[in-house]
């Protein structure tokens, strides 16, 4: 019998991954937090990482731009490549890497500076603008792409921290995209936002997905279903299931995935 799910299974993904994780293990001291995860991120695609607290999804996300480097007890094994290049190679400039692989956090964290400077900070330190007019251009474009321009164009000198929570989060997204990243990582970017602000960020994610590879950690199943094309379900450090979001949310293959997304005892 022809089975729709089988068609998807048989479709070999021949695209070249933007980022590729192969057999990644993460240890915090003796704790084995991520257990051999292999996962690709593609341009033009949003991948949602879901799973209960402590399942390793945020830890895994933080490996993708080496945020875990700052944790002294943390050890990462396996390979993670960006355009085929190992990001844990000693030759890699971590600051440069984090410009290419941007991150947006759970709580909006604008710098205590003006809206303009929040966005201009990255391009300045990375030397992306020669003149003030170039910088103006970068700031304007980034704010436009983040869907914030119309709301702040008349008060670029106001402090970023004076914006609403949702605006602050979009400012952080503008800050991330101002340095021309290729990948954007989002760690529960909407968990502190109301539904309207959440909808605006989600609309923004839809807009951005054409230009960047995006990975988003979320505790909202509906958000994962709404914004992503691929979903990865993590549980106790394992990647239990990874596939098309529509498949995962209509007919997941693994019982553990089903129990989690439907809110059952597992």
């Amino acid at each position, binding site marked *: 019998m022809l089975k729709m799910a089988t068609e998807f299974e048989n479709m070999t993904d021949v695209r070249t991954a933007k980022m590729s994780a192969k057999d990644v293990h993460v240890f915090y001291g003796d704790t084995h937090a991520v257990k051999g995860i292999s996962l690709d991120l593609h341009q033009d695609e949003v991948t949602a990482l879901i799973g209960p607290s402590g399942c390793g999804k945020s830890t895994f996300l933080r490996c993708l731009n080496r945020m875990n480097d700052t944790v002294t007890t943390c050890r990462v094994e396996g390979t993670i490549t960006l355009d085929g290049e190992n990001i844990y190679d000693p030759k890699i400039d971590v600051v440069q890497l984090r410009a290419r692989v941007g991150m947006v956090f759970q709580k909006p964290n604008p710098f205590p500076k003006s809206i303009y400077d929040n966005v201009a900070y990255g391009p300045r330190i990375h030397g992306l603008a020669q003149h003030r007019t170039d910088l103006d251009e970068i700031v304007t474009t980034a704010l436009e792409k983040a869907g914030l321009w119309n709301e702040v164009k008349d008060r670029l000198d106001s402090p970023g921290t004076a914006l609403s929570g949702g605006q602050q989060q979009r400012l952080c997204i503008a800050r991330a995209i101002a340095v021309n990243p290729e990948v954007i990582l989002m760690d529960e970017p909407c968990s502190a936002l109301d539904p309207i602000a959440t909808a605006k960020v989600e609309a923004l994610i839809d807009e951005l997905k054409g230009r960047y590879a995006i990975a988003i950690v979320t505790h909202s199943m509906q958000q994962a*279903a709404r914004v992503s094309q691929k979903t990865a379900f993590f549980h106790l450090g394992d990647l239990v299931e990874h596939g098309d979001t529509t498949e995962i949310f209509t007919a997941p293959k693994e019982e553990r995935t089903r129990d989690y997304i*439907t809110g059952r005892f597992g």
Partner: protein
Amino acid sequence: MNDHIVKAYDHELRDLRAIVSRMGGLAEDQLVAAMQALAEFDTEKAEIVRNADKQLDALEIEAEKAAIVVFARRAPVADDLREVVSSLKMTGLIERMGDYAKNIAKRTLAVSEMGPVAVPQVLDQMAKDARKMIQDVMDAYVHRNPDLAMAVWERDEALDNLHNSAYRTILARMMETPDKIGVLTHFLMIAKNLERIGDQATNVAEQVYYTITGVMLEEARRPKHDLTSTELVTEENLDNE
């Protein structure tokens, strides 16, 4: 399957399932009662069937409301989503079965006016098969048995073949006894009703199978054996049988 952490969610799904099961049982009863009324030319019984159809209509609306509540409150996904969507479709299909039973009852009322005419036996056989399909598909639903649902799905072929035979039998009788053509036309339509009940049961089977497995049985793959709408029966080719 494990229970939901939120008990109320389980209760809502259980309530919805109960409505679907009840409708299946009622549709079966209606079919049996309609055929009994026909066999006995019992207009009272036929009238009861005709009126009882309202219950199925009301239950369908009840199921629809219950399903909408689940959508609104729970935003169901995965198995739960399939369950609720399929419930909506199943209740629609079962309600149609009821309509066909009711139509048999209405025709019984008409036929009874014209005086008793022997009911072709093949109609009884069709009704028996259709009833078994309803029973089995509801059994598959209640006991979450995809194999049984599949078996019902495959059994539609047999009912189609019986329908072909009923069609020819009744047509032959029309040719033999043109004065009875009015009654026999009703029998022809009753045969069609029974065949359609089987179709609905088959569609319910698809929904049950999808709910349990997540796999859609493709409509196109089901062999169609009902020839009555595509072939022309004449005295000559009837004789050739």
